[in-house]
């Protein structure tokens, strides 16, 4: 068996194409980012090597802490809602007897198919303080709870995170659905015979069996949240003021608006490290030996 699974030629054949392309196109630029984070550099001219000065500056910059905090808020919100709602929807739709499940499945995925620009424009209208849908609904039910959802420095980041959570829930739904489908039917059958309710079966059998699925959903959601950029770029440009900055946005601002590419690279380097730590923690928490049935 070891010989079978340790076939050197096969291993090389399988991994080399991906590793090669990835190393050249993705990893090499990342290395350059780390390298450039130790430069005072505008992105075009020569630049000067300044060791860790960019990092020292970063840790004294209140904007950096705002950005890190917002990234964490964003990550937590999208992780909880996407995986939470995604699981509920996936388990419900996986039930073969459910009427209209095909239609539901297609519907849940539609926001993902649309471009992020469309979805952000829609939510800008929904959140709008004057003509927005949410405020109109409050008005209709007679509540005097009008909010400037995106203009208050406290609620803006939550409001934006929700848009992302809502749009990309479909991804998690589809991944979890594929995960549910991969759990062999006989286990559910056995649970049924034991007289377990559906909920019990899901909690005791599906979810543990889907540990690997949940693992990559978590990594996907958390790193996606820490990386968030497009939503704030389109919806608030980081505003009001600096209240919806994330590390990526800080990098973008430093590199392109301020012309401090080296400083921006330092912010990006921290981001990569942050994501790496998050991933390692997830892997530790859901550490499981290779499943044997």
């Amino acid at each position, binding site marked *: 068996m070891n010989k079978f699974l340790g076939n050197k030629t096969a291993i090389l054949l399988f991994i080399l194409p991906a590793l090669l392309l990835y190393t050249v196109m993705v990893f090499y630029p990342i290395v350059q980012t780390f390298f450039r984070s130790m430069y005072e550099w505008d992105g075009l001219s020569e630049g000067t090597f300044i060791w860790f000065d960019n990092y020292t500056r970063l840790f004294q910059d209140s904007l950096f802490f705002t950005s890190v905090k917002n990234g964490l808020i964003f990550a937590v919100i999208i992780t909880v809602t996407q995986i939470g709602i995604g699981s509920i929807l996936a388990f419900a739709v996986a039930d073969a007897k459910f009427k209209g499940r095909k239609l539901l499945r297609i519907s849940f995925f539609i926001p993902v198919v649309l471009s992020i620009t469309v979805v952000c424009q829609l939510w800008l209208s929904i959140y709008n303080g004057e003509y927005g849908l949410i405020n109109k609904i409050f008005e209709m039910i007679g509540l005097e709870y009008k909010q400037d959802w995106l203009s208050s420095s406290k609620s803006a980041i939550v409001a934006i995170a929700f848009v992302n959570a809502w749009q990309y829930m479909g991804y998690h739904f589809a991944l979890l659905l594929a995960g549910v489908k991969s759990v062999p039917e006989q286990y559910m059958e056995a649970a049924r015979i034991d007289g377990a309710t*559906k909920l019990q079966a899901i909690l005791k059998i599906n979810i543990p069996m889907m540990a690997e699925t949940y693992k990559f959903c978590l990594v996907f959601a958390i790193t996606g949240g820490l990386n968030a950029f497009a939503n704030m770029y389109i919806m608030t440009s980081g505003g009001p003021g600096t209240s919806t900055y994330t590390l990526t946005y800080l990098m973008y601002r430093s590199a392109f608006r301020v012309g401090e590419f080296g400083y921006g690279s330092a912010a990006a380097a921290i981001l990569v490290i942050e994501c790496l730590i998050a991933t390692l923690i997830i892997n530790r928490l859901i550490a499981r030996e290779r499943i044997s049935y």
Partner: protein
Amino acid sequence: MTWMMKLRKSNPGMPIFLWLYAILSVYPLVWMIFYSLKNNDEIFVTNPFGPPMHLRFENYVEAWSKYNVPVYFMNSLLVAVATVAGAILLAVMFSYAAARLRWRFSKIAHTYILVGMFIPIQVIMIPLAILVRDLNLANTYGALIIPYIAFNISFASMVFYGFFRSIPIEMEESACIDGASIYRTFFSIMLPIIKPALATMVIFIFLNSWNEFTMAVILITKESLKTLPLGLLFFQGQFTTDWGAMGAAMTIASLPTVLIYILFSEQVENALTVGSAVKG
């Protein structure tokens, strides 16, 4: 099956929630089409959410006249199909080796590939553009296809890795005893098992590539190679934007994918059932 029926009856809230959520999910599609038939005033002030009062088809005429929609469309399709093919192939091979085969650095290699998900594309745009130039890819389809494949490998590998890890080891053991080669085991036994994941990732990567804007806007300068999202550039001014025509351009870009998805999802559904049947 009766216990499920019971559950259904005892819990009517669930279907209601599901259908409400479905409506909430489909609304943006409808909204986008409405939007594409309105003018700025209607979009922002008088009627942001309802159907348009006049159908302004001139938005489509405007959008269509601005750029060569069929050419952009074909480019998008070509790039997306090539990206899907390349990324799926490379990722599935890599993740199989990382998840199932026995070699020393498999864990490290897996984490190494994951790092690609941690870096926002804006950060590495300039080094990437320089690479594209140095590899003589500039102004070819490869300028998009190659980076798109590279950037989709991380996510796809992570998903495939997860699925491969969930497969019991007995699968390979029996194949080994039957005298099948590792390649045959991979193609004839492992791949069919992860078909649900394959089908899902085909759609994901297709969409990623189809909607990608950040790289396309910088890496493609030649008119004959531009993809659909770049059409939006023609409507965004420094101060004002022709939102209606932009809506039309977005609809032109998105509607085909929605249609393809609706038509194709039947196939995906089949793939899913076949996949679990093999398992059972």
